């Protein structure tokens, strides 16, 4: 007599078989992120190439000198910028000649510089497109003008005051800024990495995992309701708790698969963008280049984030079940889960815009404690900033939320409303209508 498989395992396998073949789950959770990120990466890579190409394209500069003959400084400037000097012509005519950058200079410019008085000039730029790279090109020309003028000043200084460098005049004191944060001195770069982790990596990780898990959990019930298989399932000789556990386990497996897909997709995306920049830069300069940024977090923070994510994942799945049990079909489940996910993700959007949740008022913090996504975000932020007490409190809150929502889900699953088609929302509506 061969040994029998555990009932829970049989139920989990059935759940996985049904869910994995469902198009919404397969593409939305498992394959979608990979495909989406790869397409986005390809487009972003191509766009990166275009950006590099655009940045490398030199502007066509003309100098329009008004009021007399151009002096030595103007001629030096024209040579350095590879520009032609014009006089007695309008700006429009120069633009029509194909120039896109026109420097307006006059005698007072030369006089001011030779006397050591700051001069003011006008640069007219005709952008090819409205993009960051294109719009930043005039800044490059302005910078080039300053450095050429500085070189002229440096030549004067070398002649008359050989001990003083031009760099001293342009920037007499260089201030190195360091931040004293949680007992440690951090450079601007280190703190930037921290901000990157808090305001980008954490909300992104939470959104990726929890939102997908909520959706799949909600769909799991919707599928049973739509296929009218729930009634048969409830008559099987297994407890309702086993049914809930099997659904939880199956969705968790898929959610983890979804997270891995997202992570792999994100990696591909970043690599494709990096490659786009590198290839374009290599074409322009003949040298290999890299993207030059990474999203890094301290190891302890990654571990804490992992534990927090697992707890949040669980809470999200249970919430997904509750939401799904109140809908009558897959579409209803999806819609309800989307609304819930969006509402829960509001604190994460706040983080994207740089809001520090820890700085909010106590009342708002208590409200946020009900939101598993916000709690995880606070845990992750606290783990980076070294606030261990806050991390433990966050874990406690998530465990309490997990227990609370599981009790609610178990109650709903035992409730006959799932079968009789009188979910909570419909019953509340009826009661309200009756009380009127």
């Amino acid at each position, binding site marked *: 007599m061969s040994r029998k498989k555990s009932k829970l395992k*049989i139920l989990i396998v059935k759940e996985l078989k*049904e869910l994995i073949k469902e198009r919404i789950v397969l593409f939305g959770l498992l394959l979608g992120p990979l495909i989406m990120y790869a397409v986005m990466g390809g487009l972003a890579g191509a766009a990166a190439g275009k950006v590099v190409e655009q940045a490398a394209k030199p502007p066509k500069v003309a100098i329009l000198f008004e009021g007399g003959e151009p002096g030595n400084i103007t001629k030096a400037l024209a040579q350095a910028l590879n520009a032609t000097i014009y006089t007695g012509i309008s700006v429009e005519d120069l633009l029509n000649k194909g120039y896109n950058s026109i420097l307006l200079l006059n005698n007072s410019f030369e006089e001011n510089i030779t006397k050591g008085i700051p001069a003011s000039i006008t640069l007219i730029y005709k952008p090819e497109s409205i993009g960051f790279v294109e719009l930043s090109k005039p800044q490059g020309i302005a910078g080039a003008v300053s450095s050429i003028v500085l070189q002229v000043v440096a030549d004067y200084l070398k002649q008359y005051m050989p001990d003083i460098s031009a760099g001293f005049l342009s920037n007499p004191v260089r201030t190195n800024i360091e931040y004293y944060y949680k007992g440690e001195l951090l450079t601007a770069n280190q703190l930037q990495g921290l901000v990157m982790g808090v305001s980008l990596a954490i909300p992104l990780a939470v959104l990726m995992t929890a939102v997908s898990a909520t959706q799949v959990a909600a769909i799991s019930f919707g599928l049973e309701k739509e296929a*009218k298989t729930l*009634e048969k399932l409830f008559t099987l000789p297994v407890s309702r708790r086993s049914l809930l556990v099997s659904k939880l386990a199956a969705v968790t497996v898929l959610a983890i698969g979804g997270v891995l897909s997202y992570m792999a997709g994100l990696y591909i995306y970043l690599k494709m963008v990096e490659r786009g920049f590198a290839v374009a830069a290599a074409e322009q300069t003949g040298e290999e280049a890299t993207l030059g940024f990474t999203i890094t977090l301290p190891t302890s923070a990654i571990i804490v984030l992992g534990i927090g994510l697992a707890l949040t994942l669980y809470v999200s799945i249970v919430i997904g079940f509750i939401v799904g049990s109140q809908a009558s079909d897959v579409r209803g489940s999806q819609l309800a889960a989307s609304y819930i996910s969006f509402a829960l993700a509001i604190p994460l959007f706040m983080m994207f815009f740089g809001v520090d949740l820890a700085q909010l008022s106590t009342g708002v913090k208590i409200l946020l404690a009900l939101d598993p996504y916000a709690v995880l975000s606070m845990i992750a932020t606290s783990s980076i900033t070294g606030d261990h007490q806050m991390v433990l409190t966050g874990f406690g809150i998530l465990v309490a939320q997990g227990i609370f929502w599981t009790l609610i889900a178990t109650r709903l699953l035992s409730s006959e409303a799932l079968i009789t088609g009188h979910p909570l929302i419909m019953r509340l509506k009826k009661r309200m209508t009756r009380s009127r």
Partner: protein
Amino acid sequence: MTETALIVENLWKSYDQVTALKGVSFEIGKGEIFGLIGPNGAGKTTTLRIIAGILHPDKGVIRIYGKDPKRDEVEVKRIISYLPEDAGVYRFLKGIEFLHFLAEIYAETSEEAEKMVEYGSRISGLGERLWDPMKSYSKGMKRRLLLASTLMTRPKLAILDEPTSGLDVYHSVLMRKAIKNYVKETGASVLLSSHNMLEVEYLCDRVAFIDKGQIIAIGTPEELKQQFNASNLEEAFINAVGGEVEEHVA
């Protein structure tokens, strides 16, 4: 009746403001096919769902082979099997996978599960189509598979809600034969509900008329016809509810 398979005593059930059952009582003997007949909304499905353990009664007693379905939930569910009226199938599972899934839940050993699947496959009559995903099945094929899955676990009490609902004559006859043979082979009991009086007359040993949540008459088809001075069960039911057809439809 030699041995009682099911006792239903004074069953009451309400949904919000609607009282679906008002003191329903009946008994089914071992090896008996018992039919519950009534119009839409009479309380047939509610009664079957309560016996299957899906719904809980507000009041009343149920005993299945002497066991309380509320107290011995899993134990009772092991000896019963329920075919809901509008039951669906898992779209992406193959017919054979569905039978395996249910057999593995019910059976104690792999060998027992294999026997169940073999039996289920035979009753379903789906042959090679069992290896196709169930989403490709016609309504009749789905219903046959569901009936097969209900009977293959060899329940001591099979609860069948409109077993031939929506099926053509050919498939309905096949299903009725399967039910009749099952009872003959196993000595199990069947509780079924149906709108089809011909089906009830052919299958059932005894019948209960249910209307507006109450049992209004119980007996063999012959006894009921005699009692209500009718030539068939349909007429007997109409006479039993004491009114014209128009009153019930209105």
